[in-house]
């Protein structure tokens, strides 16, 4: 237990050095480490100055590239940010999907020989089709089966279930298993769209992760306004260009009775009524790019689109034959803008102007370019921490850790004297190893996580104490210092392992079943247990062994 050959010493030193190296970056700024700062998009003078300073420092950094540069990941509660939990309604996904299939169904039933039926009315995710002629039943079912699309990984799952519910009634519905498959499919599509909306340039650290089959977790570090993210994500993002009519008499007529067939009455951003043709000239899939631009008239922020080739062609033809008329740019049922067509627009470049701020224009461009969401996102949980509170929490947590460490250290030295000092040394090594492990694993440190570290500081001496107590007993039984130390360590090992495995079980359960901050607590607790056992059992023993060899004490003052 006490002989440490060169290879053992080398191994221990390596582990400690490696931990120290991994922990080291946390002591420096990113620029010093040669890591280019992240562009947060903030435009205030202070942030810009800070950004430039870090950029400058990063370029002249002497930090060698073979050394680690990764820091401990700070949780949202420490660096500030927004956490959102969203829920997809499978029922809604299913009925939206069935709606898109309606056009195909009409087409299939209209093929010669025509199958006559009542106009079907969709109710949620079912669509009853009542035939005029019961003899055509089998033919109708066959036609519907043929256009039934597959869903899911295996491809045996069909979207529609087609039932004969009576002599002339067919019920088309989405089965439960298809609903699940559709929801899972929608979930992965939505994660993609959310990412494109929130992070169009791919620079921010926003994380978007699935939870179960119908939920998505969004974490946006550094974001201080939960409503902004909700606004960006709560729009379906269905963008169309339609011909419009602002003629007052036509609008009046539409308001008093109903719009003429094929037209609907919408409102523009200021709430004014406007008649819009139901058939869009251009839809979201025709839009190639959307960016924030500037209105040439007054240089205010605007949104610029470029249409795809076929979209531009169609739009050009429509505008050429409709000079002097109005067209509407419609987003989720609201007319964003309704310019008059002064001349044909061929190049496929369109601009929406309005009273946008730069940020609004950027968000709108991101929404349009990202595409349409297959269903509404329902927000069911939100937690936001402002940057001020985050910084305060870090300060308080750090202070508590240092005070705790000092108190425990003083206590150990008072209780055990020199050998207590060894324990404090290994406690410091323990903290360094925990920080190193957190940085190396890329684990997230949360505020409860800091509490976990402090708790570890308190409990870490436990293993040392068990050993020391054993050594005291052995000494009383009349053994020499070195045999007492050996016996003490040998007899304490099983106890220490037993005792720590139970705590480790608790930490593992917390990690598996906990969420957010609790997970962070579990991580530091678990890492702390492993490093504590290592430092108490290996590092302190090594210190003690060296001291025994050098000082050759007659008696251990334990």
């Amino acid at each position, binding site marked *: 237990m006490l002989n440490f050959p060169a290879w*053992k010493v080398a*191994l221990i030193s390596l582990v400690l050095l490696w931990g120290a190296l991994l922990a080291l970056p946390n002591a420096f700024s990113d620029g010093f480490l040669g890591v280019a700062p992240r562009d947060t998009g903030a435009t205030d003078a202070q942030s810009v100055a800070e950004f430039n300073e870090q950029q400058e420092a990063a370029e002249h950094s002497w930090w060698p590239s073979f050394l680690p540069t990764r820091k401990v990941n700070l949780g949202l*509660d420490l660096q500030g940010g927004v956490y959102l939990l969203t*829920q997809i309604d499978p029922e809604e996904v299913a009925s939206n999907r069935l709606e898109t299939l309606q056009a195909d169904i009409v087409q299939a039933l209209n093929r010669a020989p025509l199958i006559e039926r009542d106009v079907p009315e969709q109710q949620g995710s079912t669509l009853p089709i009542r035939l005029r002629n019961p003899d055509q039943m089998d033919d109708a079912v066959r036609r519907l089966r043929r256009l039934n699309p597959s869903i899911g990984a295996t491809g045996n799952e069909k979207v529609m279930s087609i039932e004969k519910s009576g002599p002339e009634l067919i019920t088309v519905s989405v089965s439960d298993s298809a609903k699940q498959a559709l929801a899972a499919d929608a979930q992965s599509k939505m994660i993609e769209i959310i990412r494109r909306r929130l992070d169009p340039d791919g620079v921010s650290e926003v994380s978007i992760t699935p939870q179960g089959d119908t939920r998505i977790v969004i974490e946006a570090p550094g974001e201080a306004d*939960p*409503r902004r993210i*909700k606004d960006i994500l709560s729009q379906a993002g269905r963008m169309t260009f339609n011909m419009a009519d602002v003629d007052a008499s036509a609008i009046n007529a539409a308001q008093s009775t109903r719009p003429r067939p094929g037209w609907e009455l919408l409102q523009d951003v200021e709430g004014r009524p406007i008649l819009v043709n139901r058939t869009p000239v251009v839809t979201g899939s025709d839009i190639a790019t959307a960016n924030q631009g500037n209105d040439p008239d007054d240089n205010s922020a605007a949104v610029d689109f470029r249409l795809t080739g076929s979209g531009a062609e169609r739009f050009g033809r429509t505008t050429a034959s409709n000079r002097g008329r109005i067209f509407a740019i419609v987003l989720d049922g609201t007319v964003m803008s309704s310019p008059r067509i002064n001349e044909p627009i061929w190049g496929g470049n369109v601009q929406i102007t309005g009273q946008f701020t730069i940020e609004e224009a950027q968000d709108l461009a991101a929404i349009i370019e990202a595409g349409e969401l297959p269903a509404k996102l*329902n*927000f*069911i*949980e*939100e*937690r*936001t*921490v*402002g940057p*001020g*509170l985050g910084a*305060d*929490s870090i300060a*308080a947590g750090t202070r*508590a850790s240092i*005070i705790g460490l000092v*108190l*425990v250290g003083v*206590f*150990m*030295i008072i*209780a055990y004297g020199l050998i*207590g000092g060894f324990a404090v040394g290994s406690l410091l090594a323990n903290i360094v190893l925990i920080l190193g492990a957190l940085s190396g694993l890329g684990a997230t440190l949360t505020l*409860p996580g800091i*509490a976990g570290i*402090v*708790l570890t500081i*308190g*409990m870490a*001496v*436990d293993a040392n104490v068990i050993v020391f107590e054993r050594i*005291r007993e052995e000494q*009383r039984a009349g053994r020499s210092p070195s045999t007492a130390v050996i016996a003490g360590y*040998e007899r304490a090992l*099983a*106890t220490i392992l*037993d*005792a*720590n*495995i*139970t*705590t480790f*079980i*608790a930490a593992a*359960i*917390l990690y598996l079943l*906990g*969420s*957010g901050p609790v997970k962070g*607590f579990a991580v530091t607790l678990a890492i702390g247990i492993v490093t504590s056992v290592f430092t108490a*059992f290996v590092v302190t023993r090594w210190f003690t062994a060296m001291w025994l060899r050098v000082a050759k004490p007659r008696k251990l*003052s*334990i």
Partner: protein
Amino acid sequence: MLLQYWPKKTNVPFMPLRMGALVMSTILIAASFFMIFTKGLNFGIDFSGGSVIEIERPDGAQEQDVREVMSGLGLGEVQVNAARGTGVDSVEVIVIRFATQRAEEGVDQDVAQQQANDRVLAALGEAFPGYILRSSAAVGPKVSGELLRSGLIALAVALLLMMAYISVRFQWKYALGAVAALFHDVIITMGMFSLTQFEFNLSTIAALLTIVGYSMNDTVIVFDRVREEARKYKKMPSADVIDLAINQTLSRTLLTSGTTLLALLSIYLFGGTVLSGMSFALIFGVVIGTYSSVFVASAVVLMLGLDQGDKPKREVTGFQGV
């Protein structure tokens, strides 16, 4: 150093005291159940749903001004309190709380809660332009139900796994003793939360699980000694064996509790308001856990009958690595 002045052999007669301890524990557990069922636990929004919004006090604004802004939003009862924020130079904050919102027909309850929260933030923005948000949290009733369920499942699974581990390493009697001590700690700590009406939330569950781990750690160390002494002294009465083991581990038990409490006190005093509930639970749990590993766990083993003739199980020996 100072520990040399600790008596070489303590002879505290723990087991003869166990009847008194048993009475006290029974009273505490009964009182805890009574508190939990009558007064209930002060569930935070994690488990009951609702919203908590904390803003820095806008210049020149008082709580009353914030109350007036809230009164026009139709949120039902809104609590507005002033407080001191976490931190060294703590800022003055205003905390706004309101319970789960009743949703209109056809609107998901969890979604309604979010909308209410957004309305509050919008109203604050209009009344106090440029106000600084410290934190905001809105949890719907469905989500809070799930959080509570998963928290309780976590506790139950942890207890079961530890019981299994102790059964494998020791024997079922020890496992029962350990688990009795754990239930004892968890119930009394929850009773404490009911009495003080401290907020009971996700961090509290984390604290309870940690207490379970810590108390287990303590219990195992005592049990280890009990087993060792029981094999050594086959003729000694069981109660004396247990007393001997507890006395032998007493200095370690007190030292470790001491250092852990020092560390936890520094979180409680200096770690800010966010951690105060969690560290309070941990402090209380360490005290009660230390007590239970000495009195409750061992007393249960004694009641079940200590086996002093059992063959030593295979030990982890020859740890010659590293």
